[in-house]
């Protein structure tokens, strides 16, 4: 019941909003969407706690079933998606992309925007709950279209060309990845004779080394686009920079998680031997991504792109944990996944808010320091940056530390993975460097830019107050929820680790 509600309510309301309800005025649409997201979210939380199962025949000829269930691996992700889903809809009270009429270009209606948000949430929830490989793929694909709408129609109002480029890049890149994944899934299902994810590991275990490796390569390549793993990441900065704030948040906190979740669910669970064979390559790609993203963040000028590149670096740690092949590594990847979802959501809400206030987030422009003019927003930013650099006591630390431990004592390929652990530790220092670079430019400094000090003090302060108003109302509430989540996961990591423990042990056979 909870499962059906969780999928049906946001799904149906979202569909209605993008079709029949398009003409709805913004206020009604927001309330409707918020109610739908909240009901769906509550149902998802209940489902994550109760773990019900839905299992119906769907396409009997192919053996594809309408099979949803939630286990320890998907439960934290379902809860994350549910919370983020409510937050992004609530954020529509703060930022209203449908009202931006820059250059007089036609924009979509509020209802379409909110419907697209709900559909992304539905698709992601369905993908996390799917217990059938083909169903997973379909849910995975459902997410793409509304996301494309969000980027191409509600993205950065400044440049239509940038929106077209970013959205086309996003859709083509991920479509290519999906095609590879589809071939992998079909091959797997065809060879194993079942699409049921519960039965697949046993059935696929009988496959020889060759097919296992081929399937693992196809699935991993396809999903690596979504994660994204270096060098398949170039769609991400463009998409993040262009997408509206809510879109960026969904992209970072939900869509990227589909990629890592898929890696756990498909290649790691079903063709473990094949996955182990390609694990060193994956680990190397992961740590190159850590360094690559970290280095670019040291010189990147656009703050939104910078956060996007830092995502590449953080997902590198998740991939490293997965590649280690041990239960510790899997646990590290799962908590790292959740932590990155919360932290990047926090940072994107802040940076999106800044872009909204300032018009751009070019770091080369001297602006009043957040610590001076809007302390609450500044506090959230510095907390997010601290979490991003892996400060213990905040969410990011556990995933990174455990990934290093796992890579130091991996299940296979000890030499390669130990080297990767060393490089990843260097990448953690880079994370500190770029986080503090941002803090030094945006957070601390003078209340007024040097150029403006000639103005009379009172006049200058007035002007600045209108330029960088501190966060309040809904935005403050959204930030507060995310800050609370970052601190909670950091201080009590067992909230996540204990949920995933049993499933992770089962998945990698209990041993290290």
């Amino acid at each position: 019941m909870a499962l059906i509600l969780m999928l049906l309510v946001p799904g149906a309301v979202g569909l209605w909003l993008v079709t029949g309800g398009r003409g709805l005025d913004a206020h009604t649409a927001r309330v409707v969407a918020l109610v739908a997201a909240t009901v769906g979210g509550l149902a998802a939380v209940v489902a994550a706690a109760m773990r019900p199962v839905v299992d119906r025949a769907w396409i009997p000829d192919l053996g594809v079933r309408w099979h949803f269930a939630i286990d320890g691996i998907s439960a934290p992700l379902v809860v994350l998606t549910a919370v983020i889903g409510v937050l992004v809809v609530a954020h529509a009270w703060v930022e209203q992309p449908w009202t931006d009429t820059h250059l007089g270009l036609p924009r979509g209606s509020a209802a379409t925007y909110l419907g697209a948000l709900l559909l992304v949430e539905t698709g992601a929830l369905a993908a996390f709950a799917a217990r059938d490989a083909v169903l997973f793929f379909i849910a995975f694909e459902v997410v793409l279209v509304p996301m494309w709408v969000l980027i191409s129609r509600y993205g950065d109002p400044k440049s239509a060309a940038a929106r077209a480029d970013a959205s086309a890049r996003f859709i083509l890149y991920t479509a290519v990845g999906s095609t590879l994944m589809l071939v992998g899934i079909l091959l797997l299902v065809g060879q194993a004779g079942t699409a049921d994810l519960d039965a697949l590991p046993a059935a696929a275990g009988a496959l020889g080394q060759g097919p296992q490796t081929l399937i693992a390569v196809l699935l991993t390549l396809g999903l690596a686009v979504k994660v994204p793993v270096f060098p398949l990441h170039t769609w991400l900065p463009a998409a993040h920079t262009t997408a509206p704030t809510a879109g960026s948040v969904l992209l970072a906190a939900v869509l990227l998680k589909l990629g890592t979740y898929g890696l756990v669910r498909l290649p790691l669970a079903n063709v473990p031997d094949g996955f182990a064979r390609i694990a060193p390559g994956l680990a190397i790609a992961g740590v190159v991504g850590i360094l690559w993203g970290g280095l670019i963040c040291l010189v990147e000028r656009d703050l939104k792109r910078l956060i996007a590149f830092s995502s590449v670096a953080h997902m590198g740690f998740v991939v490293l944990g997965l590649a280690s092949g041990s239960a510790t590594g899997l646990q590290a990847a799962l908590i790292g996944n959740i932590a990155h979802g919360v932290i990047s959501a926090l940072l994107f809400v802040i940076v999106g808010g800044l872009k909204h206030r300032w018009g751009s987030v070019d770091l080369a422009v001297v602006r009043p320091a957040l610590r001076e003019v809007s302390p609450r927003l500044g506090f959230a930013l510095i907390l997010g940056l601290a979490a991003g650099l892996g400060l213990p006591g905040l969410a990011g630390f556990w995933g990174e530390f455990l990934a290093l431990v796992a890579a130091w004592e991996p299940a296979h390929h000890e030499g390669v993975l130990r080297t990767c652990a060393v490089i990843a530790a260097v990448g953690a220092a880079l994370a500190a460097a770029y986080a503090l670079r941002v803090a030094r430019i945006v957070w601390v400094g003078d209340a007024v830019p040097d150029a403006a000090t000639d103005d009379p003090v009172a006049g200058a302060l007035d002007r600045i107050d209108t330029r960088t108003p501190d966060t309040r109302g809904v935005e403050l509430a959204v930030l507060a929820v995310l800050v609370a989540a970052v601190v909670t996961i950091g201080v009590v990591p067992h909230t996540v680790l204990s949920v995933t423990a049993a499933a992770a042990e089962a998945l990698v056979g209990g041993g290290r």
Partner: protein
Amino acid sequence: MSALQVSYLLVLVPALAAVATLALRRWQGPATLVSVGAALVSLLLAVVGLVVAPVRGTDLVPLRGSYAVGGLDLPLQLGAGPATAAVAAVVALVAAAVLVFTRWYLAADDRLAVFAATVSLFTAAMMLVVHSRDLVLTVVGWEVMGWCSYLLIGHWSRKESARRAALKAFLVTRVADIGFVLGVVGLCAGAGSTGLDTVVAAWTSDEAPGSPALRSTLLVLVVIGVLGKSAQFPFQDWLPDAMEGPTPASALIHAATMVAAGTVVLAQLFEVLVLADGARWVLGLATAVTMVGAAVLALGQSDLKRLLAWSTVSQVAIMLSALATTTRDVGPDPALFHLWSHAIFKSLLFLTIGWLSVIAGSTLASALRGAGHGHPLARVAWLFGLLALAGAPFVVGGLSKEHVVVTAYEGAASAGGPGVVVLAALLVTVVLTAAYAVRAHLVVSAPVPNSPIPPLGPDTPGPNGGIGEKSTGHAGMPSAPVLASLAVLTVLTVVGGLVLLTGLFDVHGASVWWMVLTTLLIVIGGGLAWLARGSGDPRDQFVRTPRHRALADSGFGADTAYRALVARPVLGLARVVAFLDREVVDGYVRGAAASAGVAGWLAERGHRRESPSAGLGLLALGLLVAAGTAVLTWR
């Protein structure tokens, strides 16, 4: 109340105080009262902890089920031991004194409450490191301390020099922490647990999880992290710059937390450290170089606060050198005892110079000349603090330094390890320390009261133009609680060595002969500085040319070296990577898009002509693709 409960409370109380203070930050007065109150409660708890401390050799560790993450056990436990209780007491004492002093010193600051909250969090993190019986908790406290130091040093964030100093402090220590984290990761992964006792047992047993070479490498990595946090060569240069922070922050960082944490961690890992000769050599050589170099630099500083900073670097090197040379029989307690005494006299010195700088308006030696006049308590406090720093016999610093010297001698005598090098460096340092302590005393007690506006010679300002202390907007007389805490610290500086009678520190008796010898060296060093005092700044006798002054004030140009050797190459690499990302990695994507466009154009043309040959060609291509797929998937 058991010692164990005390240790949990000592971590929790300051942590909760930090949260409460931050929540109340709008009301500065009550907020700081909360943190001061919590610090006093902590102090009381720590005193209780001293009373109920377990007897030597019987460390208390709770028996409790541990969490497991995959194959890794995470016990996440705290423990208590005799030396732990003593160190915790001194940390609580310094934190309380610093918070009391802050209330007076930063009374006019608009972010006083945030500062107090950070100090509380810093204390909690240090308490966590001190009581930790789990390496993950140690890392947690370690990194949180680094973050708090960033916030405290950069407290006056409207000042560019403070922002830069904060960034530098965090980045330098974080780079060293690459080693620390990797070392801890390796030790924990090998033992399959993060529990300190399990790790130590695993790596000291005959069936260690790795070869002795691996063990030594991991310990070297940990030592590198310690060198960074403790500002030892080659990471030393962040600490003098950290003087940009408010003086109470310096007192906290230098006396009882941050720089001292490395000593605590290595003492916890002592059983493994004594087996790792490589790590002991690295530690011994680095500390030997640091203690002498920092003492030389202290002698040449134009800013007394920076002089104290370099003296900290030198003194922490002395602490750590005890760990590098000590034998298994002697144990780590001489180092911890020096930590204890250094915490007392260094916090006294910093708080006193904070007071003096309010009187003089600056911490430059030229401004502070004669600042002690009319403030006898400040002069007495400064004198006793410097006596302890110089290591005069029987005051707390002298006693602990004697133990370090004897430890180094025993280490050198029983061969193995860097004992001889360290002992030689120690003796040189004793002379230099006495000299710069005398110099610091002569400046403050000089008979000429300084003019209200300190005359700045053309060559006097340091690299940052001197450390301008914020005007606190009140006359130079601190409040009664501040005077009381200074008095307590002064008394403890004199009689603090009595802690040895309690048996909390397991140290062997000092040798009379060594005491006579070091006293002689102190007299020589102090006498030289006295004779050299002349009429002006005694420094003039040692550092004569402006070039030498610039060299001393810039710490032998370490900052330039950091930039040239690390910062610039990394930024250059970053630009290359950004270029590659834009032009190469993204290039093939754009290339694919372009080739798809070309293919589309060709296909369109082909269709328009509707020539049968083109259709045939496409069909053949399709067949080829199908055949290829079939071959590839044929199993």
